[in-house]
């Protein structure tokens, strides 16, 4: 199997879908000859032409709106947000138009809005956000958060084929740091199926995106440092639909749970998961449910501040030790 980076895997997924289905096209800022701010679409306009890799004016409402209209007419647009932070500029069209159209009048809006999210690259307050939760909280939208290159390809394909609007949040830290075997052939990772990233029996860490690696790092260190704790890591892959069954099954097995995300704390996704634990796994819990998240502040720029902001393996390890000692 060829080794692909996370970003190459996304490109390959989109490329294959565009070969397979001529209704699929991509639009956004600087994605044509330039290949996009992160070079995700390198070579794509040359291959597919300017009608299918479409450079737009700097106007998120204009191109998200255009994608919605084209999708209702039967096309399959993919929108690139140059940075996920800027999705707030077109919030209205996503939550009021795309999310509600099927419910209101039966008009499906099969769009994918994708782009780089997350911190760790010193992007500062406007190039590091994790904006997923606003969309998780909007019925009618799906939210995908790939962690591996294999999943990145399989999930983008599932997102493109999905009949509903999908937000696909890539983690920019992973773009070129993750490289793994990715099958060159067509495969889909269905939305709503979590993945066990590490099997363990003592404690579950439920997480997604780049934090999967933070959790794995913590798990390995704990094993090496002779804590004798066997950590399970569950990678959610998509937040909507959510694989509640897999999450609950893990917690019922280990009886201890940490909810980890890079997004800020208050009303973050961990809060929703904690509520599900409380109602559906209460009898299985041997310790309190702990959240490890970023604190409630914007993502800062300066390296020591950003490091303090982002959940670190040490934070996860401390939480694990606290729960194991409970």
């Amino acid at each position, binding site marked *: 199997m060829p080794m692909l980076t996370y970003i190459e895997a996304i490109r390959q997924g989109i490329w294959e879908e565009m070969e397979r289905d001529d209704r699929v096209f991509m639009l956004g800022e600087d994605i044509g000859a330039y290949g996009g701010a992160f070079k995700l679409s390198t070579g794509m306009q040359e291959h597919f032409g300017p*009608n299918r890799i479409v450079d737009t*004016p700097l106007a998120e409402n204009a191109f998200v709106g255009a994608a919605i209209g084209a999708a209702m007419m039967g096309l399959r647009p993919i929108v690139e947000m140059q940075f996920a932070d800027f999705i707030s500029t077109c919030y209205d069209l996503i939550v009021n138009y795309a999310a509600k159209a099927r419910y209101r009048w*039966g*008009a499906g809006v099969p769009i994918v809005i994708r782009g780089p999210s997350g911190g760790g690259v010193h992007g500062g307050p406007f190039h590091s956000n994790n904006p997923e939760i606003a969309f998780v909280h909007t019925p009618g939208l799906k939210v995908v958060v790939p962690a591996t290159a294999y999943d990145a390809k399989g999930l983008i394909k599932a997102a493109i084929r999905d009949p509903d609007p999908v937000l696909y949040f890539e983690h920019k830290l992973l773009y070129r740091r993750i490289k793994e075997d990715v099958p060159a052939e067509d495969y889909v990772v269905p939305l709503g199926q979590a993945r066990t990233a590490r099997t363990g029996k003592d404690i579950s860490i439920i997480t997604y995106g780049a934090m999967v690696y933070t959790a794995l790092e913590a798990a390995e260190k704990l094993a090496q440092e002779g804590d004798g704790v066997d950590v399970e890591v569950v990678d959610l892959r998509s937040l909507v639909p959510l694989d509640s069954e897999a999450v609950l099954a893990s917690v019922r097995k280990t009886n201890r749970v940490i909810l980890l995300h890079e997004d800020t704390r208050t009303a973050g996704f961990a809060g929703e998961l904690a509520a599900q634990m409380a109602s559906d796994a209460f009898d299985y819990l041997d310790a309190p449910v702990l959240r490890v998240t970023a604190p409630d502040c914007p993502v800062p720029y300066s390296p020591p501040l950003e490091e303090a902001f982002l959940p670190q393996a040490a934070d996860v390890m401390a939480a694990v030790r606290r729960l194991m000692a409970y």
Partner: protein
Amino acid sequence: MATVTRELGSQLLYHMKLMRELEHRIENLYRQGKIVGGVFFGRGQEAISAGSAILTGPEDVVCPCHRDLAAFLIRGMPPWVVLAHYLGRKDGPTRGRDGNTHMGALPLGIISYISSMAAIVPVANGVAFSFQYRKQPNVVLCYFGDGATSRGEWHEALNFGAVFKLPIVYLCNNNQYAYSTPVSRQMAVEHITDRAQGYGIPCQRVDGNDVVAVHDATRKAIARARKGEGPTLLECETFRMTGHSAHDGAEYVPKELLEKWKKKDPILRFEKYLLEHKLLSRRDIDGLYAKVQTEVEAAVTRAEQSPYPDPGELLEGVYALAEKDH
């Protein structure tokens, strides 16, 4: 000026009158408490949606706004279905999920607007984009008010439409008010056309109470769009002859203005035109109005027989899958 035939003349008059009478009935039903929420009317503005939408072919698309009922009727939405929608019944195009003219029907080429003013404009562009993408010779008519032209989405969309030379006609009903705000407080330029010029879009001010003028200007704009020459903006100058919505007494509108515009009523004016040009006789017109009355009464009866939606349907159609499960 295009010559209006007897056939076209009676169609235009019929649809303007049908819109007016249907809205009168809607207002009655609202005052009786049978229609809940809010209702908005296009009284005095019927020439705009009728004179333009009548020019669309089966594969063209209209994106009407809240004072454009004639566009829905011309595209084939039956009056009783419109009423069922207002009444929140099961047989409306949103099955009770939405009210007033927040509705669409893909098979009829009607794309629904949403409440956020101007959000439809970028979406309408997307419909036009799909025609361009598939090399279809079709056009989109996109409607909005003067107030909507202050929104960022409108400006982004006009620029986008111009850059892509989309096959679309932007139809502004400048009825001099946005809720209580007069145009002079809406913008520092005099006309909506001044705004369009900034985007390199050909534009024209049209007497919006003269259905022949609207028809003529739209015909030319559609021809341009079909030839691939890009969008046109038509500023149809008119006046809102009701409050903003049925609950609004519009005390802020000077009485003299209403008196002045009453004399320009588009239906009476067109009657006069038809009589003068000997296209229809008084008897023809009276016969046509009698037919409208009968149809409206039958529509009310049929709509009131439509059942309310079953609360068991509450969660249907948020996502495509849920619909399939059903």
